[in-house]
């Protein structure tokens, strides 16, 4: 696994002319034909594929949301005010994440750590809300295997929750690297890439909140 805290200067082979790229260079450690770092391109490509994953899960929910031979349907149990607050928390975590990226880009490591910790905390609050919602649903008689609607709902929101949890792990890992002095300003892109994942998780929740919770 690549040490993301390592300095990123690269010496081109002797005799080779520096490669030219179309578009702006953004702190690249080596020449690429696209002008974008490989790590950033990989994350965006990954996020493009994640659209397919969540598209499938949302589609499955749409097909099964009324399929309940017995037990309640998820939409019978929604607490929209509570979920609205959860949504707002996750939205604000996107703000703190982008402020963390901005902080490391200007070399403010204290602010970076504060914003990373805040983002992770807000993510944890969101997950807590989800867990609470799941326990309420189970108490009301809707479990993962109660009916097809329940299975589809828990699979969709569960997968999203796992993504958020993994995002929290990434945030804490980044914070620890910074605390150990292994995340210099030159590695701001690493924080930006973590931020891309986090914002995508937020964007998916924007979709889920509207399609699953709000649209009757």
């Amino acid at each position, binding site marked *: 696994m690549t040490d993301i805290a390592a300095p990123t200067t690269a010496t081109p082979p002797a005799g080779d002319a520096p490669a030219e790229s*179309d578009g702006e260079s953004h702190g690249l450690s080596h020449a690429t034909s696209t002008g974008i770092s490989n790590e950033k*391109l990989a994350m965006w490509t990954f996020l493009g594929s994640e659209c397919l994953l969540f598209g499938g899960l949302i589609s499955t929910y749409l097909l099964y949301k009324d399929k309940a031979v017995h037990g309640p349907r998820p939409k019978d149990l929604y607490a929209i005010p509570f979920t609205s607050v959860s949504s707002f928390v996750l939205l604000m975590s996107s703000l703190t*994440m982008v402020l963390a990226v901005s902080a490391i880009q200007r070399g403010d490591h204290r602010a970076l750590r504060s914003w990373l910790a805040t983002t992770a905390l807000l993510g944890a609050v969101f997950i807590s809300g989800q867990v609470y919602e799941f326990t309420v649903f189970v108490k009301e008689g809707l479990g993962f295997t109660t009916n097809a609607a329940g299975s589809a709902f828990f699979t969709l929101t569960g997968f999203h929750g796992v993504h958020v949890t993994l995002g929290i792990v990434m945030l804490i890992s980044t914070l620890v690297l910074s605390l150990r002095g292994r995340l210099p300003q030159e590695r701001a892109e690493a924080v930006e890439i973590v931020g891309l994942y986090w914002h995508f998780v937020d964007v998916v929740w924007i979709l889920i909140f509207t399609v699953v919770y709000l649209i009757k």
Partner: protein
Amino acid sequence: MSDATATAIPHDAEGNVEVMAHHGPSDVHYVRIAVLLGVLTAIEVALSYAGLPIKLEIGLLLFVMAIKFVTVASHFMHLKFDDKMLTKIFYTGLILASGVYLAALSSLHLFAK
């Protein structure tokens, strides 16, 4: 033959690549975007309680959702300020996914009356 508009990767005196920080909008801009997103979320919730005709409600909710989606992708994810190739990659995946699943859902009569 080099493209006159291509940007060479900057190198220092020893031939090593110089690493530059990418600077985007100010923090105030991000806070404004967050406030906008909060307001849009409130509008969405209000719409769901407004008792509008169902098709109008769905249309408006999807419209507001799309605005929030594009706003986060453009500003927080920096698509607006980054290389256009990233925009193409992300939205290609999104459009492909949307098209595939809309076609699948249509074939399963999800949208039929």
